[in-house]
């Protein structure tokens, strides 16, 4: 009977509707019913970061967002994942960051064109780097 993991797994057949129904004292950590999104949310960008020798920038895996969403969509336990927190935050997604960069570039180019065509005489050349809060 010294098998805490076994105890924790036991209710799997009669899966409780809520983790609260499981006797907490026998399942000290790591809810077995944990859905993937809950785990990823914790495993990927939490925990103490002590950079390893092999640099895996977990937040820079662009394909991940695409494939993961497809994958999640096909898994009913992850139904509620709403995993696009990866994608919409520039801090988390290289793509979002790149989009922001592309947008800035576009604005700078427009600004440059305007300056070169002399239609914006007020703007000093030094100010060209500021996308003027648009």
């Amino acid at each position, binding site marked *: 009977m010294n098998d805490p993991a076994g105890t924790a797994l036991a209710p799997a057949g009669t899966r409780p509707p809520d983790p609260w129904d499981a006797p907490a004292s026998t399942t000290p950590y*790591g809810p077995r019913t944990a859905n993937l999104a809950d785990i990823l949310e*914790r495993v990927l960008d939490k925990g103490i970061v002590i950079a*390893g020798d092999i640099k*895996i920038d977990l937040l820079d895996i662009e394909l991940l967002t695409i494939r993961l969403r497809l994958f999640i*969509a096909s898994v009913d336990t992850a139904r*509620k994942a*709403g995993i696009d927190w990866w994608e*919409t935050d520039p801090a988390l997604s290289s793509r979002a960051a790149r989009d922001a960069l592309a947008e800035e570039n576009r604005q700078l180019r427009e600004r440059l064109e305007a300056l070169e065509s002399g239609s914006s005489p007020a703007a000093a050349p030094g100010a060209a780097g500021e996308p003027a809060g648009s």
Partner: protein
Amino acid sequence: MTAAPCTTGVPTATDVPTATDASTATCVFAVCRGGDPAALEGMPGHEEGARVRLLPLGSLTAVVQDVPADRFSEEAVRERLSDGAELERCARTHHAVVSAAARCAPTVPLPLATLYLGDERARAALGKREQHLHAALDRIEGRAEWAVKAYTVPARPDAPAPAGKPEGPAAPASSSPDGPGSGRAYLERVRSRKRACDLRQEAALRAAERVDTALRGLAVAARRLRLHGPGPDRDRRTQMLNAAYLVDGDRDRELAAAVGRLRQEAEADGVRIEVSGPWVPYSFVDGGGTGDLGC
């Protein structure tokens, strides 16, 4: 007698077998203090690697696994984590080892795929952070993380604006400009429906804030995590709260009771609460409980 008994009398670094072999990398799952982590030795880790083992680090113990370096190179890992099924397998494996460690001893989880070129490198890197690790362990020892999410339950499509019928037989067109069939009446209906929706949303937001406030009262620390966007299957729920609470081990019943009560109250505002836990305190090991990640 709570000091780490199994970290003493270890072989010196030079005795460590095979671990500095260039074909092998050291994957670190977690760092423990004290307890009895010996039970972890031999548990399976990532599929391609050896069994999980312990790496003594002075007053701490790292839970590690030898993995083939070529399968865990930057390129290989990137590739692998870009595959949904593989990512899930890796994440669940990591979580399983971390959770098992936490059952044996106070444990600080490291992020997925923390890889070193050998034990010595791991020892050096982790050794440098020893104080930091101890501080994190002090913070989480005897405590667990509980995840709480609140969602608005989608309004029933037949829950109309308070004034008037939803749509359909909206009374025969009247010639009066203010009659029920007029454009003005239509706009009014649209507006009041929108108002009702806004009110529901505000009530739900307040309910979610009440949940957060109440649970913070029971917790040692709390964090707001990033809100999830809408689910991929057009799930119409909206997440209002995604939070993690660090709770003393002997207060979990109290937390359960509070959640039960809050759940009933929130129901009235169309808000559903989901709880999962206890988790190893992943969200509370990197420097305190005040860092909100925004909403």
